[in-house]
């Protein structure tokens, strides 16, 4: 493991961790507030990617500048949040908050299956590859290895910005505080007049938009094909559970751990690369049963 290989593994790990964090951020937010692990998050991620490819493809066909792809990513993320996130919470999840948690989980699983087919019907099964946004930023060579500026600098920067932005939003804005209160104790929050329904709807839309943004940002780095949602989402489950429920900072650290773990494994023992994230999750939870930053709630008797 020469020093150059170490740095290479580090850069690859950071680039991958940034992407995993962006997706896990939305999942963590939703879970923190609504105690629902949104399995449909994977489809929202994939649809974000598909939407970006279609939008930027259409924009390029109109001869617009490739740099326009970036604002289009935000557009597709917002679209995913509003057009999909809103209705899912408002029409479906709102009616089952009193039902057992396994049923809430399964509603999101049912939505996941529906959206997987929607992707297939709308965008077909052939893989898409739209990397103009990535190419627009060009490459940078570090230690003899050429990286795309997009993956090495932009993605980690966006991830860091989202982390700090979300922290600021949650701690220093009114809506943010409402979300934190509802995350802490929903009954208490409702008893002091917080309209939980609005907070839930807002949180789910933001969460869904983050999933869409994750997909949008991932689209130039990978080929978009059916099933990409399922691969990414199972990793986000690992991140969310390892971090502890609703822990934004935890999600960031765990995404980094899992990203680095996986990329170092590729360099050291490639066969185990896909194994590493789940091994980390088991190891962390064996030491801290409520997740790295989770707090155990003792049962009152």
């Amino acid at each position, binding site marked *: 493991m020469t020093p150059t290989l170490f740095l290479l593994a580090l850069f690859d790990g950071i680039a991958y961790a940034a992407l995993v964090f962006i997706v896990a951020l939305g999942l963590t937010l939703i879970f923190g507030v609504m105690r629902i692990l949104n399995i449909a998050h994977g489809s929202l991620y994939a649809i974000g990617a598909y939407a970006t490819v279609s939008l930027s493809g259409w924009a390029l066909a109109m001869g617009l500048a490739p740099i326009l792809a970036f604002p289009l990513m935000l557009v597709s993320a917002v679209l995913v949040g509003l057009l999909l996130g809103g209705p899912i919470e408002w029409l479906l999840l709102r009616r089952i908050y009193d039902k057992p948690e396994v049923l809430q989980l399964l*509603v999101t*699983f*049912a939505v996941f299956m529906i959206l997987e*087919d929607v992707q297939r019907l709308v965008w077909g099964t052939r893989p898409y590859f739209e990397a103009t946004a990535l190419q627009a930023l060009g490459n940078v060579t570090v230690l003899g290895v050429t990286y795309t500026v997009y993956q090495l600098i932009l993605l980690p920067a966006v991830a860091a910005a989202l982390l700090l932005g979300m922290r600021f939003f949650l701690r220093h804005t009114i809506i943010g505080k409402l979300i934190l209160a509802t995350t802490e104790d929903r009954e208490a929050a409702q008893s002091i007049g917080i309209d939980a329904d609005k907070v839930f709807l807002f949180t789910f839309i933001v969460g869904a938009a983050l999933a869409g943004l994750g997909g949008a940002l991932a689209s130039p780095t990978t080929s978009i094909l059916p099933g990409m949602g399922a691969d990414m989402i199972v990793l986000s489950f690992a991140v969310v*559970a390892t971090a502890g429920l609703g822990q934004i900072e935890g999600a960031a650290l765990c995404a980094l751990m899992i990203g680095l773990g996986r990329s170092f494994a590729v360099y050291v023992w490639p066969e185990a690369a896909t194994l590493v994230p*789940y091994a980390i999750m088991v190891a962390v939870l064996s030491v801290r049963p409520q997740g790295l930053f989770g707090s155990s709630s003792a049962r009152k*008797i």
Partner: protein
Amino acid sequence: MTHATEPDKSRQGRPAGGPSMAGTVLPLAGLALLALVPLGAPGMQLLVNLALAKGLAVAGVSVLLRAGQVSFGHALYFAVAAYAGAFLMTALPGADLALVLLAGLLGAVVAGVCVGLFVVRYRGIFFGMLNLAFSMIFWSFLEKFYHITGGADGIRLPRPAVLGMDLDRASFELVLFYLTLTLVLGLGWATIRWLASPAGQIFQTLKTNETRLEYLGVSPRRALLWGYLVSAALCGIGGALMGVTQGVVTPEYAWWIRSGEMVFIAVLGGAGSVRGAFVGALIYELVRTYASAYAGDVWQMLLGGFLLVIILFAPRGVIGMIETLAHRGEARK
């Protein structure tokens, strides 16, 4: 995960467990109907066989639902058993079918003990996700360690002998069909009786109050472990049967979507109901096979929509609906 299923109303006020309509008569009638499939509708034989094998695994997941715990990784035992059978067949080419199933069951139970001892310390989302993690670790092992596990293409599970006889494909599949049916009847009945037994009832108290269970002198973890092993065994037998029926075992057996599918079918059939598991599995396979034939490749959407309707309007699943109809029938008698 506090209360995962509605209280099972059919048990109320009927301590002696007389042969009620939904409890005994209908399931037996259903099984008798299925027994005629190879004669009446041979085209459906393979499908029903696969559905019943999957139903056994779903029954295992349903048992855990009874204790309010949802595992998102029970495909692990499904795959361990199937691969155990496949490895046995490559090691002993002439092995007997009973030996293959036994190897599968043994593999699943041993894996159940190893993983179980760890996961019984967790509840709710952590229990679900840790099971997922273990199944994904096994999936990665199957997918990536090509030289040991045959990698993504999996391993062939050639046709085992039956009681020393090498049958040709058609009669082997007939024997396998009726063996699956017998196992469904036997294991289904045994699971239902276990759930109604003192040990089974203690296991189900985990769903509502672990503190009181601790104060009755019982270790909640050990109680959960017993139920966990029952569910792992059921998943194991389901997986072994599926592997033998398919003739090939692939890492796909351990993929997380298959675990999610099992929970999906359990709730579709009736969360926590053993009978519901088989009904759910049959519906799931029928829709999966025939929907794609008629309605194009949207079987996932159909099933997703069907489950939404069940959860929103009939949370006790298909078996719940049947039981309400049966009770209404009995009341009118």
